[in-house]
């Protein structure tokens, strides 16, 4: 796995390549419109830097860093 979501710094954008999470979490993310091929941006890091919030197509959501590590992305320039 090359880059993952956790590598994104605040304000950086990437494209989702693959989600390597277990079924339940994956379903929850899909419900929010988070799936392969979508652009994702890191928008908030929170008081404890974990969880962090991301933006996908106008939907903002938060996941923990431990889960963000399992989402493979390619950074956009």
């Amino acid at each position, binding site marked *: 796995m090359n880059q993952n979501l956790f590598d994104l710094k605040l304000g950086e954008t990437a494209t989702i390549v693959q989600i390597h999470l277990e079924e339940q979490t994956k*379903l929850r993310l899909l419900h929010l419109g988070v799936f392969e091929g979508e652009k994702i941006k890191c928008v*908030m890091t929170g*008081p*404890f830097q974990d969880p962090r919030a991301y933006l996908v197509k106008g939907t*903002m959501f*938060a996941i923990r860093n431990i889960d963000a590590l399992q989402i493979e992305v390619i950074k956009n320039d």
Partner: protein
Amino acid sequence: MIKKRACFIGQPNVGKSSLFNILTKMHQHTGNWTGKTVDLTYGTVQNEDILWEVVDLPGTYSLIGESEEEKITASYVYEKQYDVAVVVLDATNLERGFALLLQVLEIAPQVVVCLNLYDEAKKIDLDIDIARLNEIFQVPIIATSAKNNMGIKEFLEHLNHPKKTVPYPVSMTPKIEKYLEFMMPYLKKEENPKATAINLLYEDKYMEKIKKSDQDKVKHQLSFFRHYIKKSELLESYLLEAKKISLQTVHRQSQKPNQWNEFLDQALTNKWSGIPIMILLLFLVLWITIIFSNIPSSWLFSLFQYLEPKLYALLSFLPSFLLDPLVLGGYRTLYWVVSVMLPPMAIFFPLFSLLEDYGLLPRIAFNLDRPFKKCGSCGKQSLTMCMGLGCNAVGVTGTRIMESKKMRILSILTNVFMPCNGRFPAMISMISMFFVLSTNRFSSIISSLFLTGIILFGIALTFFLTKICNHFLFKNEKTVFVLELPAYRAPKVFKTIYHALKDKALDVLLRAMKVAFPAGLLIFFLANIQIGQATILSWLQELLNPFGLLIGLDGVILLSFLLGLPANEIVIPIMLLCYNSGSALMEYESLESLKLILLNHHWTTLTALNFLILCLCHFPCATTLLTIKEETKSRAYTILAFFLPTIIGLILCFLTTLIWP
């Protein structure tokens, strides 16, 4: 007159319930869905010659979900005990909504679609091709906005004349196509064979739709397909189709970010300002509640006291062994609870609802996830705690927003550490009598600060007990946390206040009243029936006294908390009743006179402190316990919820007494 039924389906935060409220106005009630232990909101609308019964289903992202609420909605849709399904979509985020709509179209016989929040979509320059959407989905699609009643008339017209739905041909992955191909021959007689096949992939419920002779064969194959096709794969098919449709019909002209929202998010979640702002908000809400509830509270007392002799006279035909308990016992306790509880609740619930509707609560959950994660729970527990500040029973029901059973139990067991509105007033009087000089000009601010401190201590206890329970009950099982952070949305102030008062405050008040009256009767009998030289009440307080003294309290205080089980509001009045060896509850004229009575019974600052501790940490009230039993369906957890906080409270009181100088 024709009667028909419509159900409202929509994702969370699309304004589905606001739309529902506009349509049904006052004609609403929550009730049980026949055969299921789920409360749904029902309402009625008279629309020309048809009387519609409308059902507000829990918000759901899709019909292929895992959460409790998603399952409820899905099975309601599948069981088809309605004429029309109304799908409410968020016009500012249609793509996600389309995925849900595609699923409903495969099942519901008739569908009407509302593009809600249409005005907001216009504001962010979204161009939605409604004519094209009509062609694609072949159902009526109406642009609505619950905020300014837009499209409501048009919607009602379409509701009376819906068209039969035609499922949209969603292209599935090869695996799923293969499965459908296999199932189709067995579902020839079905109206919606595809939907039934998809449901069978995850549940056995519709197995009866397949001929008995074929069932074994199908079951065998199903176990293979079930293993092979994941839910996420199915959902992805719908989402990809939704994306295709969205590309054809929704165009964003320009993307201008909402600067205020971005600023607010940065401030609320910032490393330095995030947590302090949240504490400040908590303080403000408490302060407003405290300063505005005192006066109406005393008005209510005067009113009820004025009415008491009149009620007494009115019922004077009753023999005195009935009259006295009814009026001096039941009625007095009842009005006591109402006068103490109603004003803070009538202020707190609307304030809280405004913050909730504005979209603030998910940010709190976001900020606090990390510390909760360390204790084995997740940030959403903070939301149930906020609800608990209003009423612990509401907080317990609120745990439904959490996905895993483990996190729900943890939040339920610890919810009582958030002092509810029924406990506020007693705590505030204690603070103002023993810790803050009432002559001080800023006494209300200092009292609120003190109360904020107590709540922060309650939060600390919550973390502590959550961690302990997680360790011993669940062996640190892993938790999942995915939280949506919806955009801020200016609430409709008056509507929000009205519904907060009508749906929440009134509901809680009625529940409290139901238990207050019988509790009043019981207390009256305890205080008036003599055994030997003394009343039962005084025997009981003598019995508890040695233990009470050991932990810096006394028998009366312990007995008051025990008898206050039905409603926390009556703890102080029972205490007064015992101290004065009276026969009925009585109002104190002022805090000074109350303090004098307490001082005469050897109260010190330590006693007051321990009273506050016990007030924060003791068993939940009867209503909350019943709710816990209902939500956990477990007697063991209910018992645990009773004893854990009580034991912690007693230990804390003992410790403060030990170290007190």
